[in-house]
């Protein structure tokens, strides 16, 4: 379950932000691969559409893992 959410979030990050050639792990810092606050908001919006959830607009995940956990937390509610 968690694995599948991770794969889907990574796919969104790669597709949305043009990170096709970048390896993303749970520990990857979003800023370190060029995802600034605007890019993070954009990815959050894409995840809302993908998973049919509403993420707190103030959510500010720092890593891919934190991002996945926010999505998983909402999916498991």
């Amino acid at each position, binding site marked *: 379950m968690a694995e599948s959410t991770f794969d889907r979030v990574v796919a969104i990050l790669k597709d949305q932000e*043009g990170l096709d050639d970048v390896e993303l792990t749970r520990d990857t810092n979003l800023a370190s691969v060029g995802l600034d606050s605007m890019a993070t908001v954009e990815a959050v919006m894409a995840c809302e559409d993908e998973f049919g959830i*509403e993420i707190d*607009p103030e959510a500010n995940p720092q890593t891919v893992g934190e991002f996945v956990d926010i999505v998983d937390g909402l999916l498991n509610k």
Partner: protein
Amino acid sequence: MDRRVVITGMGAITPVGNTAPQSWDALVKGESGIGPITAFDTTGFRVSVAAEVKGFDAAAALGKSVALHNDRNVQFALVASDEAMASAGLDAEGAIDPERLGVYVGSGVGGIGTTEAQVKRLMDGGARKVSPYLVPMLIANMATGQVSIRHNAKGPTLPVVTACATSTNAIGEAFRAIRYGYADAILAGGTEAAIVPVSVAGFTNCRALTTNPDPATACRPFDANRNGFVMGEGACILVLEELEHAKARGANIVAEVCGYGNTADAYHITSPDPSADGITRAIRQAVDEAGVDVEEGLYVNAHGTSTKLNDKTETLGLKQALGEKGARAAQISSTKSMTGHMLGATGAVEAMACACALRDSVIPPTIGLTTPDPDCDLDYTPGKAAKFDGKWAISTSLGFGGHNAVVALRRYEEGE
């Protein structure tokens, strides 16, 4: 010491070619870039033709991330800026002090395609659905912002917004900034990507665009049967550089920029003043500053939009500014007959045509001009290119809002 300003680099992506040399070659050959609109379904639109850029793949040219987060107008500007920097040789390490390199790249309407798409998201899905990139993608200064980032240009920036006069003003202001010592080189020009439903509808309803569906006759500047302009798109960026700076690094000099005029009609939001007072004064300012002598040969790249009012008014303005004899001696053409009206990008393409005409001794034609109009009775170089051995060229631009801008160029002789 009087600082002189020359053009040392050119970059363009236009409806007739995806580089500056390709665009210039097509203009000299009289090739039209006008065709049926492919960008969207024109069902329900009275206008069905435009001059679109062809075969442009932003992701391939700029990378996926840059393509995703920049409006099409900024994508065009980035591609043109790369070509301009490379052709000037300014992309080489240490070729210029970054703090002496400026960017003056304007746009008429900025990211209108992005705005249109995001308004739809707002209406369909509510406020949460609007992209965080809406604002940076729609603001009309972002071409200049992104070009300065891409080329580490830390000198003056000035993204002009004067509608269809935008990039003529940008080049004129860049000329002045270099001449008076504020920079050693400036990337100057304009960009536009407005062939989207909302702007085509808006330009149609303000009666600016032709509803003629035939690409071969839709745009015919100075022809008696002209009835509106054809929208174009693309970007053109010139490198203006101080002469001694250019010579010191062995740059290739295309032509000299030596005069600029900038006036307002103070008359109407979209119609040119029929007295042509504003454009007359702008032409006079540019030719006076440059010291243009029409007897030494003058090419005029006219604004020549193919609207009833513009072409008539502009003809009158040329006569008033140059004198009846001077206007009749000038060789004139409207390259919009091939590129369509690239709005904020058009002045830079036309200044480039002036520079290349001086360099190559040839004038691109006004195509589609077959039926003379008694109100437009000058030499507009109809049909095919003409030889040109003159020393001078001017490019005229008139924009919604009553803006008039003119730049004057001079042939550059080796060893000057």
